Structure formats: C-alpha cells, structure tokens
C-alpha cells in the first residue's frame, strides 16, 4: 500500500525521455502529436499551439513570465541537513541528491524569488519537478517556511507553485513532518492577512497536495494538471475502481469544487495580478493597476 509517492516513478519515466536537445529544432506534442518548432513553443510558454496541451516549464521561465518585466530577486535557500537518515536503497540518497543537483544546477526541488506581479509585492516558491520529482523533504519544507517569513517581513503575498509527486521518502519521517511545517508557514502568512495563492501545476500529489497546497486562500490550476492524493494506478490496483478518463485533472477538480479557477498559462500573470490587486490594493481607483497590467511585458526572454 503505497499511495503517497507510488506514481512518481512512472511519471518520471514518461517525462524524462522527452528530448531537450537544442539542435533538434522540432518537438512532438505528447498530446496531439503535432510538430512544434522550438522557438514558437518557447514563445507559447511551452503550451502546444495546436491543441493547448500544457507541457512543463522550467522554474526560470515560470518566474520570468509571472513577475513584472521578468525581473525578480532569488532568495537563498535555508541550510538543512544533507541526507539526515544516511538513506540507501539500490543507490545512496546522497548520490541521488548530488546527481539531481548536478543535472539541474539547483540545490533543491524548490526556488524562492521575490518581486512584483501587476505591482503587488509577491514572494514565489516554485517547485522544480526535474529535481527528484519535486519531492518534499526538509530542504523544500524549510524553504516554504523561509518564503512565508519573507512574505510576512516584506508585506508581500505568497504564491506557491507545486509540481511534485509528494513526500521525499528518502528522508523518512523527516519528510512527513514537512506537511505540518509547511502549513505552519501558511498560517504565518494568513495571520498577517496577506494573500496566499496556490498555483497547482502538473503534478501535485501525495503529501504535497495534502498539505500547504490545499489550504490556499485561492486555488488556481493549470489546464490538464494532475492533482490528487492517491495515484491513479494505486486506486485502480488496490481498490479496483473504474476511473473516468479526466480523473484528477485540474478540470475535474474544478467540477468537484476543489479549485477556484483553471487558468491557461498565458493568462496567469494577469489573473494572479488581478486577484492580488483585489485582495491587497484597497484604494478605490484601480485604473492605474489596470494600465500596468496592459503594458506589462512578459519577460520570458530576459529571465
């Protein structure tokens, strides 16, 4: 019985082989199989311009498209114990961690940044799925606490963008306690009456979905994102229930009242900005923000 993180492996397997080779100028859409020219795909924010399928996007690109003018400051990640359990399966966790760091050029499965969205001060904590499936251990949990502290200290909104298979089991119970720890972080932001928005992206499952990701003031989701507690395969295999094809998709969750809106990627900056304005900017006239909104550049290129 392994419904927490069982689905990470198949998902990684299905996603990693996608070619990221720059000299291959064409990519095939995994949904409609249409051919996509890499520069056009990049401009379309990794959304298939034939069928609208949302592919994963790097954190760098994500932050660049969300923050005003593509400018933001990254925050240093807090230090946490490296491989606290000295965990070893067929491979040492310490080696897996080092490999992930080398492969992604990142320290952990999360990146923290601050800047403004439609003029509203915002701290973003964005998950890197390519780093061990975006799994949450002490490093990720501590980073969410750090993001919350920064939001409170600077009077910013907090936006967390999960893309994670769940808890990082190589950290054992230390990863499970990140569920309450990340919710404590959210509590700090809520007590300061600052907005906490969750942008659910593909995938958000297991211990990540059952913690900070489900206690947002606002839950937004990207089209087609897989969001749920137990993996589809686990449900099919252990309970043998028949599941609808769109089970656990963002659209399915919208229907079941779990997310507020499903928002196409290109509309995210405007939507998040508008919500933050409504929640944070109490001045009667918002025509200024309206203008900022229209003239703001989506700075994917310079990020």
């Amino acid at each position: 019985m392994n419904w927490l993180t069982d689905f990470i492996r198949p998902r990684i397997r299905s996603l990693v082989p996608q070619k990221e080779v720059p000299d291959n100028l064409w990519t095939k859409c995994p949904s409609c199989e249409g051919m996509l020219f890499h520069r056009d795909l990049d401009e379309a924010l990794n959304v298939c311009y034939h069928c609208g399928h949302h592919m994963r996007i790097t954190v760098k690109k994500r932050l660049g498209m969300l923050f005003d003018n593509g400018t933001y400051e990254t925050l240093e990640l807090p230090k946490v114990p490296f491989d606290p359990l000295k965990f070893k399966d067929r491979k040492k966790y310490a080696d897996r961690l080092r490999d992930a760091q080398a492969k992604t050029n990142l320290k952990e499965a999360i990146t923290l940044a601050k800047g403004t969205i439609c003029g509203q001060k915002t701290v973003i904590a964005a998950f890197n799925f390519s780093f061990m499936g975006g799994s949450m251990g002490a490093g990720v949990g501590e980073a969410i606490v750090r993001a919350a502290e920064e939001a409170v200290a600077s009077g910013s909104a907090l936006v967390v963008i999960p893309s994670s298979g769940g808890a990082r089991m190589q950290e054992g119970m230390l990863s499970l306690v990140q569920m309450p720890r990340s919710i404590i972080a959210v509590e700090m932001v809520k007590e300061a009456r600052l907005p906490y928005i969750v942008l659910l992206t593909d995938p958000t499952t297991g211990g990540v979905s059952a913690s900070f990701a489900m206690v947002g003031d606002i839950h937004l989701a990207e089209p087609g994102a897989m969001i749920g507690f137990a993996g589809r395969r686990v449900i099919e295999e252990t309970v043998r229930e028949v599941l609808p094809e769109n089970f656990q998709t963002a659209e399915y969750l919208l229907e079941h009242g779990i997310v507020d809106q499903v928002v196409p990627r290109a509309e995210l900056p405007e939507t998040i900005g508008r919500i933050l304005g409504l929640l944070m900017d109490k001045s009667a006239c918002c025509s200024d923000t309206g203008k900022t909104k229209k003239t703001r550049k989506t700075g994917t290129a310079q990020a």
Partner: protein
Amino acid sequence: MSQLDFEKPILELEGKIAELRHVSGGSEVNIADEISRMQAKAARLLEQAYGKLTPAQKVQIARHQERPHFKDYIEKLIDDFTPLAGDRAFAEDYALPGGLGRFKGYPCVIIGHEKGHDTESRIKHNFGMARPEGYRKAQRLLSMASHFQLPVITLVDTAGAYPGRGAEERGQSEAIAKSIESCLRADVPIISIIVGEGGSGGAIAIAVADRVYMLEHSIYSVISPEGCASILWRSATHAEEAATALKLTAQDLKALDLIDGIIDEPVGGAHRHKDQTIANVGKTIEAALAELTPWDTNSLKQARRSKFLAYGRNFQA
C-alpha cells in the same frame, strides 16, 4: 496474519504446554516439572525474540490484529464515552471514530483510527483507512474541543488514508491538510499516541500534537515499507530493507528527536498483554496532561508550532 513468523517456535512451545496441561490432569510430578521447564524456555525465547526485533518484525507486530484497538482503549481508559458521528456534510466515517468522554475524571475529546477486530467490523471500519469525512469530523471535534476548552487525545492506527475515487472527488488532500491545520489552531492541549501503524498523511492528519508518543513496537512512516521498496528497489520483496532504511520504529524516531517518548509494551508485545499496554498508555497520557495543564492558549499554540518547526533543525548537517 494473526501469527508472526518469528514467533512460530514460541507459539509451538506454548501449544505444547497447553497440550501437556490438558493431558496431565493431576498425574505425576514430572509432567508439572516438564511444563514449568517448557514455560521457562518459552519465556526465554520470547525475551530473546523481543530483545532484538528488526524493524521489519516491528512492522508485523505494529499491524498485528490482536493489538488493542481504539475501542479497547476507550473501554479501559475513558468513562462516559459519548461517540459523536459525522462531518455534517456527507457521511459518518467509521474508520475514524471520535467523541467526548472522561479521562481520569477529566472531560476531553478523543479521536482515533479503528481498524476493527473481525471480518465484519474490519469492513465496517474500512480497515482503519479514513475518507475525507473522517478528517472533516476530526476538524469539527478539534474546534469543539477548543470551544469548550477540553484537551484532545488522539490514537493513531492506520495504514493510511483511503485511496478511492469518492475520497479523491470529495477532497481527500484538502481534508487531511485542513485536519493538520485544525490541530495547529487548537486552543487546547493535544496528546497523540501512535498505538499501531502510523501510515503517512492519514496518520499525521491527527497527530500534530503538543506531545507525540509511540508504543514500543509501533511504527510511524512516510510510506509503507512495501510501497517504498516497490518504488526505490523496484520490487516489494525488498520491504525488509526499506523498513530499516526508513527509520520508522519508535526507537529510531526518538533518536531522531521526532517524537517525545516511547511507551513500554510488556515482553511479548501489546497483542499478548492488552490490559498492561493500555494501562501504560493511560499513565503516559495522565503524565502528559498534568504537564500541559493548566494552559495558556497562546503560548500553548506557539509552543506546538515551535516544536514542529524545530524538527530537523538540530540535526548535524
């Protein structure tokens, strides 16, 4: 699985003793001698086996069907127990019963997983795997506890939250997350005991407490060893290694400072000594309550937060 494989020689011996007793019926002294010799041997074997339990063996014991369940703890420790049902929205969840009662005379709220004790009750209680309704009822009881300033006792014993279509559709993740949030917001002391299996999110949903204790042979883990093995070793046959690597025993977790204490089980485990085990749990709850009473709401909540925020921060990097 009412027999543990490592206990087989002991169980065989115990069987023989029972047989001898049966046939001896007041005959020669040497049979009585033989019986007491075998009894001593059985006790020695038990002591040996329980003195060096592996994590995988502890997993088996933690899941043993004869271990005391929620119902047994209520019967022995709680007076005036008054079960409270339902999440006021969808259903009652028999996997996660709760209610009001008196512990040593003191009124409190009790919530816990119930796995059931025979086929019929196991099905009724869904093998202790709660659905969103269970966690929403927990939220309701936690806020009622705050309202009436009653301490909360939670007893954890679940393989995990139920993975099913309906559970997903009704927001299993949200229900668990909000249950954790409710624990953090509670204005009253919460004491949690892992009495059997502490299975991932479905367990911690009701175990974000001021004091967290584990029974000596209980387990608490982010994932089952079988699940972990099938992902990381690509085969569930490596569950024993996974059980060790996950550091899921009470002893491991105490050493990692992730729980507050271990409650002794008599030699041979809770499944052999229900009453003694339940009494030990009662003593621990009593001591914890004495420590936490009276309470100042704000400092209590602050201390609970600090306690969880401290997890992992003192490890050597």
